[in-house]
Structure formats: structure tokens, C-alpha cells
């Protein structure tokens, strides 16, 4: 009897909690609510940390200058735990519980792909900062904007340089999931177009602790390795590759270095080439806009956070910054007032051109209307004596490829 009462009591308390908890969404309607899916814990925690700081800096700047159309911007941050399922759930929570109007970020392609259908279902524009080509391809939709470089752009851009300056015979080593496959496929395509050859493609599961068995399969004929992995996998990869093939040349996307100090990586990483949409060190792109941008987000010339000495993942941080200001421009252009005006914002974003400025420190570019992808230039950096140096710049026209989808025809 008593047990039943307790059980009932508990059910009651739960119901009460739900009703009261839910009331938090009846907050003031005035500000423009922006949600952020930050990868604060889990494998991508380094990205989440700096992305959050950058977005907060951007919103602070906007609010200080009078907001958007006179309305302040309010930020809601949720942690994705670097897991796609959690990310998708948090996307819902941001929109449904906090009532955010736009969602920015997650550096994980998996999370971005998982959230894309949710963005469409909840009719909320979404600006992931992840690189998988599918986001601006078949996995995306009219609500999703990839305002950073995608894998295909990176591979296409770097292929000519790779064949001419690094090597002709390549092996690819990628993590075994969508982003890795994208890299494998695109690199092979463009390296072959440029007269090179991929002699072996190796896929490695995420979080593998012993890389030797995989790397042992790299044929002797391979002169260079193109790799797509990050975090722990990257560390194991370069260490074991250095032990087993110290002579081989290496090329990868720069975000593999996420928060790592190239100096500490030692001889294993020496000479490593990276594809970077944005140079980590100010020296690579020393413009007044960049100096101001770095100042606002609190980062020094070397890419370290002022005060803590933490390493920002600058190569991708600009995408968050740029997404916020592109959004601001689109809201201002379309005169967005509430959720029902969302299609107007999307139309304003499609085909939007922007000029190099403090708002767009990476450089001028445009958002391609057909696939919602930002078309920008790239850099190739190399670790020389433990320091990242820009080796070459690849202009946007060498990066661009023809779009595979046409979002403008999709209904809202």
C-alpha cells in the first residue's frame, strides 16, 4: 500500500517537473535566438571549446554594435558530446525548448548529417562547420548551409600542387566513416585527373589503438600518404608511420592538428603538408581584418588563446564567425521578423556575395545558391622545424567544381 503511494507520488512529481520545466520557453520574445551545437566534450572537445569562444565573440560584437535590425542576439549553447545521436537530440532541444531561430555549428560531419533532416523538419536554418561533401550534396537540404570548405573543394584544390610538389604515387589512409570516405574518393578522383596515382586505399576504424597493422599495408612504391584523421587517430598515425616509413611524405587537412602543438609532435610530423582554409599563424594572412579578428576572439599571432595559452582550431573557427555574419547580413537584407520569414532569409543567403572584411576575415567569396556551399580559396601549409608555414595559396577558381544538386528548386 505504502509502496503504491510512493510510486504515485513519484509519478506526480515527475509530471509536475515536466510542466514547470517546460515553462522556461516562455521567455521574452524580443531577442533573436541563435542556438549553438558545440562539441564541448568527447573526441571533438578541442573544436567545441574554440568554436564557442569565437561565436560568443561574434555575438558580443554584434550586440555591442546594436544587434541585428535593432534586436539583440541571444545565444543558447548545447553540448553534442561529439555524438551524432546526441547532436540531433540537442538540435531538437534548442529549437523546441529554447525556441531558437537559427542553429550554428558542430564540427562533426556526422552530427551535421544527423541534424540536417531535423533542421528541415523543424524549418530552422542550420549552419554546420563540418567538411563532408554530402552536407552540400545529397545529405543536405534547403535549410542547411555549409559556409566552410568541403572535402571536394580541398581535394580538388590541392591535387595539382600534390602531384607537382609532393609525389606521384599515393596511398590514402582515412578513418572509416563518411568524412574519411569523402576524402578517399575525392582525392583519388582529382589526383588521377592531375596525372598522379593512388596505389593503395586504407580505411581505419575510428579510435584504433594499434595502427601498425594498417600502415604496414602501405606499399613500398608509395611516395606519399594522403590521410584524413584527427585527434587520437592522427597522433597514432604519424607516430607509427614515422617508425615504419620515416621517408614517406604526408599530406592532410589542417584540422587534423586540432589543438596540437606542431613542435610537440616532434620529428614524426616534420615536413607534413596540410590543406588549410585559414592559416593558423597570422604571418600566413597578415591583413588588418585578421589582426582585428584575432584581437576580438582573443588569439595571438601563433594561434594561442591570450591568457590561457590554449591552441585554437583557427583553421575552422573562421567558419563559425563567418556563418554568424552571413546570417546577420541575410536577416538585414530580408527584413526577417519571425520564423515565418525564414524562407526569405534562406533566399537572401542563396548566392550571397561577401567582401573581405572584419566580418569575413578569410577573404572574399560567395555562397553558391545551388548547393549552399561557400566558395573560397585555400592554403597549403607545411610543418617546418615545428612551425606551420604557408607554402602556397590556392585561389577560389581552382577549388570550384560544378554543383551536384539544386536546392533553389526545393520547396520550403
Amino acid at each position, binding site marked *: 500500500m505504502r509502496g503504491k503511494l510512493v*510510486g504515485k507520488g513519484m509519478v506526480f512529481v515527475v509530471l509536475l517537473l515536466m510542466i514547470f520545466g517546460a515553462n522556461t520557453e516562455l521567455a521574452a520574445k524580443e531577442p533573436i535566438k541563435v542556438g549553438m551545437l558545440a562539441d564541448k566534450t568527447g573526441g571533438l572537445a578541442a573544436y567545441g571549446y574554440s568554436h564557442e569562444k569565437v561565436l560568443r565573440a561574434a555575438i558580443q560584437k554584434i550586440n555591442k554594435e546594436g544587434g541585428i535590425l535593432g534586436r539583440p542576439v541571444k545565444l543558447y549553447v548545447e553540448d553534442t558530446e561529439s555524438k551524432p545521436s546526441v547532436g540531433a537530440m540537442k538540435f531538437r532541444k534548442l529549437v523546441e525548448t529554447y525556441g531558437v531561430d537559427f542553429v550554428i555549428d558542430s564540427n562533426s560531419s556526422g552530427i551535421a548529417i544527423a541534424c540536417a*533532416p531535423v533542421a528541415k523538419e523543424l524549418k530552422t536554418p542550420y549552419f554546420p562547420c563540418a567538411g563532408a561533401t554530402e552536407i552540400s550534396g545529397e545529405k543536405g537540404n534547403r535549410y542547411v548551409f555549409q559556409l566552410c570548405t568541403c572535402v571536394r573543394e580541398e581535394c580538388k584544390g590541392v591535387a595539382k600542387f600534390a602531384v607537382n610538389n609532393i609525389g606521384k604515387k599515393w596511398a590514402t589512409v582515412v578513418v572509416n566513416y*563518411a568524412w574519411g570516405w569523402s576524402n578517399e574518393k575525392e582525392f583519388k578522383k582529382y589526383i588521377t585527373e592531375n596525372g598522379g596515382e593512388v596505389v593503395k586505399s586504407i580505411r581505419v576504424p575510428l579510435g584504433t589503438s594499434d595502427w601498425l597493422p594498417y600502415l604496414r599495408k602501405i606499399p613500398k612504391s608509395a611516395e606519399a600518404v594522403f590521410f584524413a584523421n584527427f585527434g587520437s587517430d592522427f597522433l597514432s598515425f604519424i607516430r607509427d608511420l614515422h617508425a615504419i616509413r620515416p621517408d614517406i611524405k604526408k599530406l592532410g587537412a589542417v584540422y587534423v592538428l586540432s589543438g596540437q602543438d606542431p613542435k610537440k609532435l616532434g620529428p614524426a610530423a616534420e615536413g607534413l603538408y596540410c590543406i588549410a582554409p585559414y592559416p593558423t599563424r597570422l604571418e600566413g594572412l597578415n591583413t588588418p581584418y585578421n589582426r582585428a579578428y584575432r584581437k576580438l576572439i582573443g588569439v595571438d599571432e601563433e594561434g594561442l588563446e591570450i591568457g590561457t595559452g590554449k591552441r585554437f582550431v583557427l583553421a575552422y573557427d573562421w567558419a563559425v564567425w563567418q556563418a554568424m555574419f552571413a546570417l546577420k547580413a541575410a536577416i538585414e537584407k530580408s527584413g526577417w521578423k519571425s520564423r515565418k520569414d525564414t524562407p526569405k532569409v534562406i533566399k537572401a543567403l542563396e548566392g550571397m556575395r561577401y567582401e573581405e572584411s572584419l566580418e569575413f576575415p578569410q577573404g572574399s567569396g560567395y555562397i553558391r545558391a545551388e548547393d549552399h556551399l561557400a566558395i573560397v580559396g585555400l592554403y597549403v601549409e607545411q610543418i617546418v622545424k615545428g612551425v606551420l608555414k604557408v607554402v602556397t595559396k590556392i585561389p577560389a577558381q581552382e577549388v570550384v567544381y560544378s554543383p551536384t544538386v539544386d536546392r533553389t528548386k526545393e520547396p520550403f
Partner: protein
Amino acid sequence: MKRGFTFLLVISLLVLGLILPRGARSLMVQMMAFSIFAMAYDISLGFTNQCSLGHSVFFGAGAYGTILPMLHWHFGVLPSVFIGFLLGLVLAFLTGLISVRLSEAYFVIVTAIFSAIFHLLAMDMTWLTGGDDGLSVTLPKIGFGPLKLSLYHPLGTYYFVLAFLLAGYLALRTIVGSPLGMIFVAIRENEKRTAFLGYNVRTYKLIAFLISGTFTALSGGLYAVSLRYATADFFSLYWSIIPIVWCLVGGLGTLIGPCIGVALMSLFQYYVSAWWTYYLVIFGVLILLILRVSRRGILGYFIGRGARGGWRL
């Protein structure tokens, strides 16, 4: 008395769907899907004392069993959920066949290995599962003759999952109240004696494992439907440990207790995770604390002080 309470609960669940704000409703959908999982796990741990760490296999299988037919063969939602359910049954049968005859310690390890291997394979077989990135799906409308129900309607998913929750509860409650349920409790209380009363204990443990695994798969399927998404992460050990937390928080061997556990833990997770990133550490501490107070969980503790956990004739 008890019937009246159940009736009240059903009514309030039905009404809640209409009055809850959207965010809370989505949370409620998740809780309802997890409640099926928690009850199913209770059949395994609470009723037959089989401490499985392999239930993520069924959860993940249920999710993919439901998502893949919709994605590749354009099946309807209901047939897909049913396929997920069946897949859970098959996997529970195969893994149960190997594991129920093992002793306690072996059972725990071997089920944990199942979970780990399936996770590994799911992460690796990206062509099938999408790996960690997972697979998203567009849910077709559910047709009942001329009536078409879209799960994209804000209330659609809520009532869809609620229907399964009620059906699942009814099914499990019936099983628990049938002779079969009595045999389960007998096995929990004294396995050897049950054998000497003429029951093939292994068979009944397998049946319990099957029921548990199958309903876990149903929960996985519904969760995937509510997310419109499945990921290889559903196979990870986390999904094997979390039902233990639910059952311990709510109370083992009570069916309704684990649901309360789900509600408490989900609310906790929902509200605390926003401001404290490392909230999961609480789960571990909770396991240790509750075990110290009562091995039957909190509700089990309260009931146990009166008479005992579980149910009576």
C-alpha cells in the same frame, strides 16, 4: 484501486500530449521510448536476475532494423518497426542461446563482449550502418485506410510512441502476471530449486532473455523513429549500462519502477547537461549509492520495507 491508478496514468499521458509544450513533448517521447527499454531490461535483471551488459545489441539492432527497411526498401513505418522487433528477437535468440547457460560472471562478461563486438562491427560496416555518422531517414506517412498519419505532425510521434508504450506495458504486465512471470520470479529467487520443481531453467531464462531483448529492440526502433535517425553508437556499452541505472533508480522487479527511473534520469540529463558537462559522473555515483541502500533500487527499497519487491497473486 490499482486499476483506477493505471487508468488515471493513461489518461494523463493522453492529455499531456495535447498540453505539453513542444520541447517537453519531445522529451516525453524519448522517455516513453526509453521506458519500454527499461521495462524490458527489468524482465532480465529484475525478474530473472540475469545481469546483462549486452542489451545495446538489441537496442541498436532494433534501431537499424527499423531504419534500414524504410531507407532501402521504402517500407512503411509500422512494418519497419515490426522488422526491428523481429531482428531483436533473432539476435536475442542467438546471443541468448550462447549466454544463458553460463554462470553469473561469465554471463556478464560474455554479454559485454557481445555489446563490444557489435559496436565494433557497426562502426566498421559503414556501408550498412553509416558508422558513427549514422543514417537519417525520411519517415513515410502511416496509412490506416483513408486516414494518413504523419509522424512529422507535432503530435504524431507522441501518440505513435505512446501507443507502443501502452501496448508494451500491457504485454509485459500480462507476461509478468502469467504463470511464466511466476516462473521467472522463482528462477530469480532460487534457480536450483526451480529446476528441481521440474522446470528447465535454461529454457525459461532464454525465454526471459528473448522477451527482454525483443522489447529492447522495439524501444530502439521507436527511439530511432523519434530521432528519424540511427547510429552505430546505439550499440555502445553506454546503452547497456544506462538501463541498469534506470532500473536501480526506479526499482528492480516492478516494471513501473524502471519507468520512473527513466523519467527521473531523463529530466536530470535534460536539464543538468545544459549547464554541467560532466553530469554523467553522477550516474556512476548513483549506482554505488543506491546499491548501498538497497539492491532492489529505490522503489524496491520502499516496497521492500512493507513486504517485498515485485508483485503478488
